[in-house]
């Protein structure tokens, strides 16, 4: 039986590579068709805001 995984992401997208690297775990798991969940917690919710302009902070 395939095991599922919950990825908890707690950092804002501008706060270093943490948010991006959590997302990379999900993307890698998606390539194997694994059942994944993402939980956006604490500052992680800032990843969900629309119309972000990362170039303004040189990202």
């Amino acid at each position, binding site marked *: 039986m*395939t*095991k599922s*995984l919950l990825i908890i992401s*707690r*950092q804002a997208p501008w706060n270093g*590579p*943490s948010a991006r*690297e959590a997302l*990379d*775990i999900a993307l*890698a*798991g998606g*390539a*194997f068709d*694994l059942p994944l969940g993402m939980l956006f917690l604490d500052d992680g919710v800032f990843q969900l805001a629309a119309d972000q302009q990362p170039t303004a902070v040189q990202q």
Partner: protein
Amino acid sequence: MKFAIAVFSPAHAPSSRRALRYAEAVLAGGHEIARLFFYQDGVHSASANVVAPQDELDVAGQWRAFIETNQLDAVVCIAAALRRGVLDEAEANRHQRPAVNLPKPWELSGLGQLHEAAQVADRLVCFGGD
């Protein structure tokens, strides 16, 4: 029971030491470690260039000894490691960098290794990260 252990913090963080003690306890309890996976700042726990002060624990050195003694599969995420300057010889050559700080027994590989370990093991236990 089969464990996969993921480490997300550098050697100087308490969670890296706790992960090591946990891994030791797993083996001491007669269980098996399917794989150790080092991700995010955890790649620094694998660096051979960490020099701990004389009156502090050399956690990076202890990781290395633990892995060598027990011949464990210890994978460092290649993307996370390159970003943080943790390079094996092949990557140092490929990117023309002057230093190598990831000799054997560590292995650079991708996140697929984390997922594979999570599937093979009964438990994936994560340490550190923020």
